[in-house]
């Protein structure tokens, strides 16, 4: 790598961002054209699918491109590739579920917003600059408000949209506050540079100021991932929104929230090593968040009867499991025990996406106007009449409960293993307790997933027969999610390898070009 001129550097940035730019360009064009051109929604959805496909091609073409991470807005490392690919692929799955969920008139805005959300999520994945990361987050939030309002059907939908809007703004403010502190303690906003400084210089970021940054960053991103105490909106918003938006909210903000946590908090504070007080506080914070989030999500989910609400609490619980990975990632940097925290987190994210989207896709398929499926009891007897759908749902639910040989089990196994093998030194029992709480929570959580399975398979049908409208894109989405859930459990190796590389990239800080070697820098 050589130092680039500002112009060359800008060109390089744009090259790396090609997939995002393609998505954004098409999305903008669609939203603009939507006002003038009348096309059936099918045309818009095909256009969106083609754009996502093009994005995947572009992503593979720019895969090898890298340049000095300390100069650039973006990094194109293994983490960026891995998570961008996941968002593109899940984007296709979401599109399959969404293709008939909107009427012709609103289709261009709807699909345009979907593409923009995808582009924003991908920007977060490759961002190497605090401000740029924030831009990516907002590029996800703003179209989400739009989508939530587009679906305005009744008062509860509007309430959900409003609630999401205000809380999202609030969390963005918290995030900015945290970012300002991180910037203030070092004077740089480049994330790799921040990580490098934090790794090589003691007391950077300074303990008290760094603590403020840590807490506010985790709070701001905690809203996206629906972690306690920022989870309040999730059940209401999921319940009030159409199922497709609930699915989107259950996956995209959570996925990108965790990637953002890895990119900012983990990369910077994790680089300090286990001896630093700030790192220990970060571990403690993440561990408490994890324990409280999964316990609350799982126990409250036990009492739910509304399907979307139940899945909302399930997604909160899963934020808790994933938070275990964050706690471990704070500790083990690029070398760790049996498996890295970031690695298990990234693997579990994929598993989570497949199984959660699969469950929502089935709900979307069986939930049509004249026979709504809102509560768990509404699913009674599904297996008797629609066996493949019930089987797909059961696979996803068993996986969410963590039953082998499905993806959810491998993910939980990796998370618990990473937590247990990180247990050295003073806070060894902290990690062991975290793994124990996780295991107990999985057992609690199994109850409410199993309840749905029992209702589907072991109860006779009641009331009107199901009116299932299964078009092939939705069917393909369900099949893809179910197969992924199965295959990722049995042949986990490729994803694990990719997740491992991505996890190493999180804390990878190469020696800066124009600086002397690290020893000269560490003037205390």
């Amino acid at each position, binding site marked *: 790598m050589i130092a680039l001129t500002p112009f060359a550097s800008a060109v390089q940035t744009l090259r790396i961002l090609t997939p995002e730019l393609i998505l954004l360009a098409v999305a903008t064009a669609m939203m603009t054209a939507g006002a003038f051109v009348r096309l059936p929604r099918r045309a818009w959805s095909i256009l969106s699918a083609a754009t996502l496909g093009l994005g995947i091609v572009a992503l593979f073409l720019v895969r090898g491109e890298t340049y000095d991470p300390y100069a650039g807005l973006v990094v194109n490392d293994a983490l960026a590739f891995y998570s961008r690919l996941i968002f593109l692929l899940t984007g296709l799955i979401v599109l399959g579920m969404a293709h008939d969920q909107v009427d012709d008139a609103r289709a261009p805005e709807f699909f345009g917003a979907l593409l923009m959300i995808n582009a924003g999520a991908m920007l977060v994945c490759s961002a190497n600059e605090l401000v740029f990361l924030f831009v990516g987050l907002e590029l996800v939030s703003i179209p989400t408000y739009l989508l939530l309002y587009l679906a305005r059907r009744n008062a509860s939908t509007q309430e959900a949209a409003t609630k999401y809007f205000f809380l999202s703004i609030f969390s963005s403010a918290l995030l900015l506050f945290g970012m300002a502190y991180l910037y203030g303690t070092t004077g740089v906003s480049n994330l790799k540079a921040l990580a490098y400084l934090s790794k090589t210089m003691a007391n950077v970021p300074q303990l008290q100021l760094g603590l403020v940054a840590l807490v506010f960053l985790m709070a701001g991103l905690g809203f996206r991932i629906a972690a306690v105490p920022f989870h309040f909106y999730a059940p209401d918003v999921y319940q009030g929104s159409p199922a497709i938006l609930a699915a989107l909210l259950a996956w995209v903000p959570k996925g990108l929230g965790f990637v953002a946590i890895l990119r900012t908090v983990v990369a910077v504070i994790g680089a300090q090593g286990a001896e630093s007080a700030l790192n220990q506080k970060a571990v403690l914070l993440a561990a408490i968040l994890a324990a409280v989030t999964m316990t609350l999500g799982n126990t409250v989910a036990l009492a739910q009867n509304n399907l979307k609400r139940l899945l909302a609490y399930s997604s909160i619980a899963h934020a808790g499991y994933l938070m275990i990975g964050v706690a471990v990632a704070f500790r083990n940097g690029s070398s760790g025990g049996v498996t890295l925290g970031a690695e298990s987190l990234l693997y579990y994210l994929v598993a989570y996406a497949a199984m959660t989207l699969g469950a929502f896709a089935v709900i979307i398929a069986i939930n049509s106007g004249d026979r709504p499926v809102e509560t768990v009891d509404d699913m009674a007897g599904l297996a008797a009449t629609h066996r493949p759908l019930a089987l797909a749902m059961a696979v996803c639910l068993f996986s969410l409960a963590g039953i082998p040989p499905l993806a959810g089990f491998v993910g939980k196994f990796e998370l618990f293993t990473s937590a247990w*093998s990180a247990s050295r030194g003073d806070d060894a029992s902290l990690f062991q307790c975290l793994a124990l709480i996780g*295991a107990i929570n999985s057992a609690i959580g199994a109850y409410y997933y199993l309840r749905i399975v*029992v209702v589907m398979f072991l109860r006779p049908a009641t009331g009107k027969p199901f009116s299932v409208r299964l078009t092939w894109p939705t069917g393909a989405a369900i099949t893809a999610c179910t197969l992924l859930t199965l295959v990722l459990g049995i042949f986990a*190796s490729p994803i694990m390898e990719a997740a491992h590389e991505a996890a190493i990239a999180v804390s990878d800080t190469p020696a800066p070009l124009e600086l002397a070697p690290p020893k000269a820098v560490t003037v205390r």
Partner: protein
Amino acid sequence: MAILLILTVFLPLIGAIVLMASSKLDARRARAIALGFVVATLALSLVLLSGFAPGKLGPQFGFEHGDGSFGFPWMGPLGVRFALGIDGVSLWLFVLTSLLMITAVFSSWESIKDRAATHYALLLALQTGLLGLFASLDVVLFYIFFEFTLIPLFFLIGLYGGPERRRASVTFFLYTLAGSLLTLLGVIALVGVHYQYTGILTFSLPQLTSGLATLPWDGWFSATSWTSPQVLIFLLLFAGFAIKVPMFPFHTWLPLAHVEAPTAGSILLAGVMLKVGGYGLFRFNLSMTPLGAEFLFPLLAGLSVIGILYGALAALAQTDVKRLVAYSSVSHMGFIVLGLFSLNGTGMDGAVIQMLNHGVTTGALFACVGVVYERYHTREMAEIGGLWNWSPLWAFFIILASLGSAAVPLLNGFVGEFPILLGMYRRSPVHAVLAAVGMVLGAYYLLWMLQRVVFGPLKEPNPHTHDAHANEVAADAHGNDAHGHGSTVRPIGWHEIAGLSPLMVLIVVIGVYPKPFFDRLRPAVTPVVANIAAEQERAKQVTSPSHPLMTKAAIPPSIRSARPASSASTPPPPRGISL
């Protein structure tokens, strides 16, 4: 042979997928396909049995590599391997599973009419889970099969069970899942400890067993308090297996699940699933954390004895034959655990062979009860009696199975329970004597059951409760005066005879000539016993006053203590290596 083992394990799964894909198949075709698959699996198991070298140490048919690892890499970065292989302990449970599967299919031959294809698909999927877990040489693979068995059994009980089936299936599923998640943590802890102190990341059962036996960490060998590493990990592992066995306070799921399950489910649940608990205790708790067992001996032996006596007394109080057999399982599994925790060769030999025996006798008893229930739709001992008059052959089957279960000499139960009591007597006479009381009670409730159900004048329930195919033979005109002179219900069918007779043969063969069985399982038990003795010896050294660990007056409370100097100086090895 190694490929044959993999084929044997996955053959039933192929059958399950075939049946699942053609769920509209009628009962006759479905049962024929299922029978074909279970017979083929049994044949392959018998080929493996005949190819098994009796005196050889270590697992066989396992694709062993020069460096001591087995199988193939599977979850790459983690170092989890796909490794199957069987040793003397798993061999018999493996064959038992294949054999009981035939009984299970035959016992659902007539009784399952609705959704038959799914029923047999679930049975076959369950078989793959059970065979796989007995043959696993990798802890993660073991765990995956272990948990996988829950799904088919859940649906078997939930879809085809009795009136309380929904509650039974959910209770069974959640209870066992909760325990086995703690077991998973225990497994992770074992791997973590091994990796931390040897620098070798392996999930292989044989490697972990030998590695942990010679761990370069003195703290591992001091089990002096509840927070000692071996004791803690023992308890984590124990949580899942104790529920599976089930040991006394954790048995509450068992009567419900056994009674509500369809006959095939009960046979496999009692015959094989309960052995999974005993097998896990042997494979993990006793092989890897024996000092935990040593430390907790009073508790474990106490619980086992309470289980034996409680199960026997509860069985005495039952009026339902199936419940009685279910509680007798609690009692008999208590013997198996007692034998295992005697921690000496005699007791453990007995416990391992008793797992096989109990599988055979309880499987046979549940099948016999199923035969009656299918015809009379009741299992209440007050409503049926004198069934000798209905079918002497059936009576012979249930008498032989009961006597085998009651440990009458020259039948199989004696071969298992006698060494268990002997081993326990050497260890702790009080427990052995109390357990012997349980044995007497066992004979009492089984004979009492036989007296009411088999002997005396024929007593059949009101024929109006008979179902359609019970009446196929019974002419309506004769229905009312059937009492006392000859039965009108369908006689015992060829399929029921075919399902039960191999078990009867085994009951007698093991009882008369157990040598071939002991010959094969002993090489697997002996190293475990030797290791227990070695670890006890090492524990004595570690806890002797002159040892540095004791003079420092600080026993590391758990694995949190720092790495020992020997391995701290060497850099951690690259990931994924297993030597």
